[in-house]
């Protein structure tokens, strides 16, 4: 019995639920609620206490999800290079390859676009008002892009269970 695959898959699911759950929290709950709170002059506690902590779990859950997924591909019994096969759309790894690429683009967005700009917005690094305004727009669009990409990403992550849909 291959315990490593079961454990990597479990970790992948746990961290993935936290990552995408927080992504949906930011987009469906926090952003519209924060806009209302800002208009009411009551946004302080959200940006001071809630968003920074949510971002800690968000960005590290993204890393754990990706690493556990990569490790899971590596344990695939059908070939020694599951990771490479997925990212090169090789053979039976085509479908999970789409999920792997989408997840990787999303991880990039988290660490290269969302987090550095959130640091400016939340005041963790110094930024002028125009820089903060630009950072807010970039972080917003990157977060919305990830929400959009999560829809096909989750479709392809589960694709092994309905591979017959892809028969011609």
């Amino acid at each position: 019995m291959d315990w490593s695959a079961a454990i990597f898959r479990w970790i992948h699911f746990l961290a993935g639920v936290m990552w995408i759950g927080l992504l949906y929290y930011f987009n469906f709950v926090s952003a519209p609620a924060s806009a209302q709170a800002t208009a009411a002059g009551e946004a302080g506690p959200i940006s001071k206490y809630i968003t920074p902590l949510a971002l800690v779990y968000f960005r590290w859950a993204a890393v754990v999800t990706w690493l556990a997924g990569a490790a899971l591909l590596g344990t695939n019994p059908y070939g020694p290079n599951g990771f490479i096969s997925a990212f090169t759309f090789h053979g039976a790894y085509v479908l999970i390859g789409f999920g792997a690429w989408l997840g990787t683009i999303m991880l990039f967005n988290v660490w290269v676009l969302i987090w550095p700009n959130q640091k400016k917005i939340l005041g963790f690094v110094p930024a002028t008002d125009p820089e903060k305004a630009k950072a807010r727009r970039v972080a917003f669009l990157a977060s919305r892009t990830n929400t959009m990409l999560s829809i096909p990403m989750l479709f392809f992550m589960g694709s092994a269970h309905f591979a017959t849909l892809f028969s011609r």
Partner: protein
Amino acid sequence: MKNPLDSLWGTVISGVILTIILFFVARAIYPHATIGG
């Protein structure tokens, strides 16, 4: 033209459309031979 990502519904609809497009791309390149079988 308004950016669809500026609205939540635009984001969700864009994701569904992207899923449909990628589904047909994946179907075109899927090898039609199951692993191990």
